[in-house]
């Protein structure tokens, strides 16, 4: 525990010091008077105070413009005062600034203070394109119950003039810049490739192979298929991916003549889902089989929607349920009821917090990016396909870098992590 917080011993200690001073003063004053009459008594007191409480000034001081910033900041750096030791005479440093236009410092104003032991202070409010002068002084003081008893300041160390300037490029972030530009270029290139009709390969995805079987089962059993595209609006990429998968499922359902129903919780999703399904049924050559009533808007309210769909599952006991899109707490409720009613459940979401429940309660789950890959795979939409490929390139680069970096670090050859660390 620091010394000054012990109130009672502290006061006792201060008393002792004062008493000691008084004696010393008498002694020295007597000496001074006896030796030379020219030294005034008061200055003797001052010097006494200085020698006892006042810390020595900080050592060599420098100031420089903060690099890689928008200007307006200067770092002041000093060496600690010789008295800046544990329980020493330095409690803090005070920093002063003077602004001048003619190259000479004018009046200094205090701009901040910092605890003992510090050697730098950043002036974040320095004006640009003027001469800034700084002073740093070591300070000792005594507090009691929040009131300042006394304060003693060393003679200050002066530095200046310095200028605060703003830079054109943050040089510490070159690696991030290179990374962003490179990856962006690759993604744009691949999107254009996909647009021009180039076939970009995507691997098989486990959950998707089960779709055929799941749809077929519904036809066999003569029961419904439910497709739930999450509870977010069309501005969420997960919903977009979900709807793309719906297109594929709808096509299959039309072929197998299974009944497909889509309860939704956003009106825009309803419109888009109807469009997608209509096209899918047309592709399967069964436009007549599609009815708009297959897509039902229920409610925007999260739990209201969950309760309604839950009721539908219990009443109609669908053979297959798809959950593809953005899900939150309702995932648990829906998947539980679907499981209890014995449906085959195929889920897919990018919400990391809901994935565990889908994995535990559903037969197949598309994990995170697999959802997007699946939708790109099915829709062959160039934007999705191109970005997915671009991300794969990014992953490949990172993978190689990680492996090489680990090998280098393990054998102590070279530390590659610097190329990836950004400040």
């Amino acid at each position, binding site marked *: 525990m620091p010394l000054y917080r012990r109130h009672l011993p502290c006061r006792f200690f201060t008393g002792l010091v004062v008493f000691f001073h008084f004696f010393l003063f008498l002694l020295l004053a007597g000496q001074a008077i006896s030796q030379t009459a020219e030294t005034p008594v008061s200055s003797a007191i001052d010097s006494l105070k200085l020698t006892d409480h006042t810390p020595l000034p900080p050592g060599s001081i420098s100031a420089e413009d903060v690099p890689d910033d928008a200007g307006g900041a200067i770092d002041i750096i000093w060496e600690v005062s010789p008295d800046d030791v544990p329980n020493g005479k330095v409690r803090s440093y005070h920093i002063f600034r003077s602004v001048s236009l003619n190259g000479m410092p004018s009046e200094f104003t205090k701009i901040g203070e910092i605890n003992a032991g510090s050697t730098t202070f950043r002036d974040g409010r320095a004006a640009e394109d003027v001469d800034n002068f700084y002073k740093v002084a070591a300070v000792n003081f005594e507090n009691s119950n929040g009131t300042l008893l006394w304060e003693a300041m060393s003679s200050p160390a002066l530095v200046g003039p310095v200028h605060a300037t703003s830079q054109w490029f943050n040089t510490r972030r070159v*690696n*991030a810049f290179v*990374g*962003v530009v490179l*990856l962006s270029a690759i993604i744009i290139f691949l999107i254009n490739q996909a647009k021009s009709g180039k076939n970009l*390969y*995507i*691997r*098989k995805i486990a959950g998707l192979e089960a779709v055929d079987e799941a749809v077929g089962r519904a036809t066999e059993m003569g029961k419904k298929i439910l497709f739930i595209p999450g509870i977010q609006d069309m*501005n969420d990429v997960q919903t977009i991916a979900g709807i793309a998968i719906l297109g594929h499922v709808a096509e299959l359902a039309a072929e197998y003549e299974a009944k497909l129903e889509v309860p939704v919780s956003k009106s825009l999703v309803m419109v888009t889902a109807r469009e997608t399904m209509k096209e899918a049924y047309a592709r399967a050559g069964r436009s007549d089989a599609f009815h708009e009533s297959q897509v039902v808007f229920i409610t925007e309210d999260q739990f209201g929607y969950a*309760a309604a769909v839950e009721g539908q599952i219990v009443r109609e006991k669908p053979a297959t349920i798809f959950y593809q899109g953005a899900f939150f707490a309702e995932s648990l409720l829906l998947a539980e009821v679907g499981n209890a009613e014995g449906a085959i459940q195929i889920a897919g979401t990018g919400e*990391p*917090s809901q*994935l*565990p*429940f889908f*994995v*535990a309660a559903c037969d197949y789950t598309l*994990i*995170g*990016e*697999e959802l997007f*890959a699946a939708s790109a795979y099915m829709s062959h939409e160039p934007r999705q396909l191109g970005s*997915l*490929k671009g991300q*794969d390139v*990014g*992953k*490949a680069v*990172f*993978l190689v*870098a*990680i*492996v090489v*970096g*680990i090998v*280098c*670090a*393990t054998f*102590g050859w070279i*530390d*590659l*992590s*610097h*190329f*990836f*660390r*950004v400040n």
Partner: protein
Amino acid sequence: MSTEFGVWVAALMTIGLFSFLYKDNPFFKVCEAVFIGSSTGYWAVVYFFDNLQKKLWEGIFPPDGAVGDAWLWGGAILGILMLCRLSNKIGWIARWPVSFIVGATAGLYMINYFVSSAMMQVASTMQSLVVTNGGGIDWQATIGSVVVAVAVVSGLIYFFFSKEHTGAFGGVAKVGIWFLMITFGASFGYTVMSRMSLLIGRMDYLFGDWLGMIR
């Protein structure tokens, strides 16, 4: 038992919402309506004072008579355009502020995620697998860093879509899915912990603050 009126109100509201677990009923619906009303109202007041009044209004018209920040007018105009969505006729103009927010978020996220969640994570994975501890090998830390390295590499390979999961590549991907499952299992356990804490908090309120049965 508490003698405070507010505690009784809070307790009854709590029981009202819980009554839904038995079945849907009017009491639950009343509580739900109060919840929607009071929460929307609360948020509205907070945003009104902490942003619109304190930052926008007093930013443009400082109370001490200083010169206001004229740039804030831009935000004010975008904000008012946002309210146009209430009208069917000029609702399309609300796309301007929406585009602004979407664009700004995209710009910030592009950098943030790339730097903090990709570059920095890659950098911190590039560590020596062998961790020494004052001369000898720190086996616990060494095993740990091997596990982390394997998890990151195999997990990334699982999410790699340009190559079929066959052969050695498929084997690594298999290891990747195991690590992902352990990860999901942990978040499963943590989520259970979280949800249970919330219920404990409510039960403590009912039995402690309201009925005064605990301590």
